[in-house]
């Protein structure tokens, strides 16, 4: 037993575990990791919010959600590339970003509403596998369309769109000092935008009559219909809203060099979104916020450890995210705030 403990101790010393731990718990390092975690959480929540709203009410697992995020990234990038000139100042760029966000939200909402009405609505009475296959098919179509369009304009579909990345204001691209902590401006902007998105969706769900209809319909759509709520229209509005939020998340990712506007963004954003909603509880918005925070903070922590202590192997943090998913499925398969059954028609 003593021999085993000594071997473990030696192994930890060899990978610099003790030194790494000492560095990790330094207030400035820890605060930086937490801020990076919050910025990742903000992105995950923004991507997953639409997915969970749609599943909560409609009971539809929308596999096209990542593709809608990817379209949002390209459309947001298009607006920025067309409107930002060499001499456009940083604050004007920021203002144009919000214009791009509004345009993308409108266009993606219209696209999402059209998909729900024309493709998904006829399948509500069929088993869930029909909706899964359909939305997966929509993903393939949207990805191929994006590949064709992007290729036509001479852009590399697999690499991040550099021209869109280049429209970021300087103060978001550089590191900002918050006391002893140094964080990239974009991370702070992502935290701010994520918090605003959560507040806006939360306010819509809890403070408006339509939000009340959505929450009632999520619990029992037949009863809601019998009380005079046009549940079919609520379904369309929620699908449109979910698609719009996915697009807004894509617009933000267009500026993030870790993500960027590219065709693979569709799959890259869908997988963590699924992890977040499963950990939080399928169909619950507060669960998505909690799941996003957990995944974001674990992602940032493991990223720091693997990059600074163990080995620079950048995809290992992604493995950690999926390990959380495995543990969550074993310990609490319904998720943090999940209920046994949601949605339905």
């Amino acid at each position: 037993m003593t021999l085993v403990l000594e071997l473990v101790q030696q192994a930890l010393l060899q990978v610099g575990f003790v030194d790494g731990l000492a560095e990790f718990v330094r207030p400035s390092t820890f605060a930086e990791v937490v801020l990076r975690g919050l910025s990742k959480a903000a992105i995950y929540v923004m991507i997953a919010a639409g997915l969970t709203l749609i599943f909560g009410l409609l009971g539809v697992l929308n596999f096209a959600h990542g593709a809608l995020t990817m379209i949002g990234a390209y459309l947001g990038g298009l607006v920025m590339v067309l409107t930002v000139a060499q001499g456009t100042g940083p604050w004007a760029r920021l203002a144009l970003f919000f214009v791009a966000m509004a345009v993308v939200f409108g266009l993606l909402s219209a696209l999402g509403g059209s998909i729900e009405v024309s493709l998904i609505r006829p399948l509500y009475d069929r088993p869930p596998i029909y909706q899964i296959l359909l939305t997966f098919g929509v993903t393939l179509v949207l990805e191929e369309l994006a590949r064709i369009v992007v290729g036509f304009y001479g852009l590399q579909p697999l690499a991040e769109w550099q021209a869109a990345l280049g429209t970021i204001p300087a103060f978001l691209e550089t590191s900002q000092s918050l006391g002893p902590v140094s964080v990239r401006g974009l991370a702070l902007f992502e935290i701010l935008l994520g918090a605003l998105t959560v507040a806006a969706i939360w306010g819509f769900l809890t403070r408006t009559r339509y939000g009340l209809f959505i929450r009632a319909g999520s619990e029992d759509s037949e009863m809601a219909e019998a009380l005079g709520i046009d549940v079919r229209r609520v379904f369309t509005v929620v699908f449109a809203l979910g698609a719009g939020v996915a697009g807004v998340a894509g617009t933000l990712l267009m500026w993030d060099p870790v993500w960027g506007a590219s065709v693979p963004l569709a799959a890259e954003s869908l997988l963590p979104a699924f992890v977040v909603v499963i950990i939080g509880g399928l169909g619950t918005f507060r669960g998505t916020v909690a799941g996003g925070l957990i995944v974001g903070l674990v992602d940032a922590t493991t990223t720091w450890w693997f990059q600074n202590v163990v080995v620079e192997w950048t995809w290992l943090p992604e493995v950690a995210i999926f390990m959380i998913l495995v543990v969550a499925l074993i310990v609490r398969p319904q998720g943090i705030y999940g209920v046994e059954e949601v949605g339905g028609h």
Partner: protein
Amino acid sequence: MALLDVADIETYYGESHVLEGVSLSVERGDVVALMGRNGVGKTTTLRSILQLTPPRSGSVTYDGTDLVGRRTHEVAEMGVGWIPEDRRIFSQLSVAENLRVSVPDGDDVAEALSIAFETFPILEQRRDQAAGTLSGGQQQMLALGRGLVGDNDLLLVDEPSEGLAPQIVADVADALAAAASETTMLLVEQNLPLALDLADRFYVLDNGRVVDEGDADAVSADDDRLRRYLSA
């Protein structure tokens, strides 16, 4: 003209033929009891009226308008309220939110809620509590309250006393009597004394067919005429 006229409806669940030519009518201001053993089609009759389970043939006319083919929310907007058998309150919403959902667009929400709170003061005390945490009796009161605030001209009430303690049944009976003075009601109820006490007229269903009907005053709970069908 009757407020509700159901004529010869045939309703199926898949291939299962549940209602085989049910006809009934409800005059404005009346309480009509729909009685019968479990599984004879009482709840399905209410679902057919609401178009939740639309009949394959026959007609459902409400206030002169044919409801068959309309969507359920349209039927509800026309003033047909439903208080279902298993309450079906929204458990994650608060008591007040459950009531607000039922208030039609354009109506004064505070005024509508006060109707439910006057009838069931306990609901006002628990207005911010999640409805799923209420007792069974309180949940039934909430379900009834939801029907009361809905500005309905016709209430379809399904087994309101089922599974409740006797004292709660008395409260529910009082609430139903109060509601009956304001609105027309089609009441599915296996508690015969309660049903006959409230009803002006009754129908008895057996195996998806109307097998008896008449004035409630003309029968009693231990009447052989009813015992034959209800095992009362």
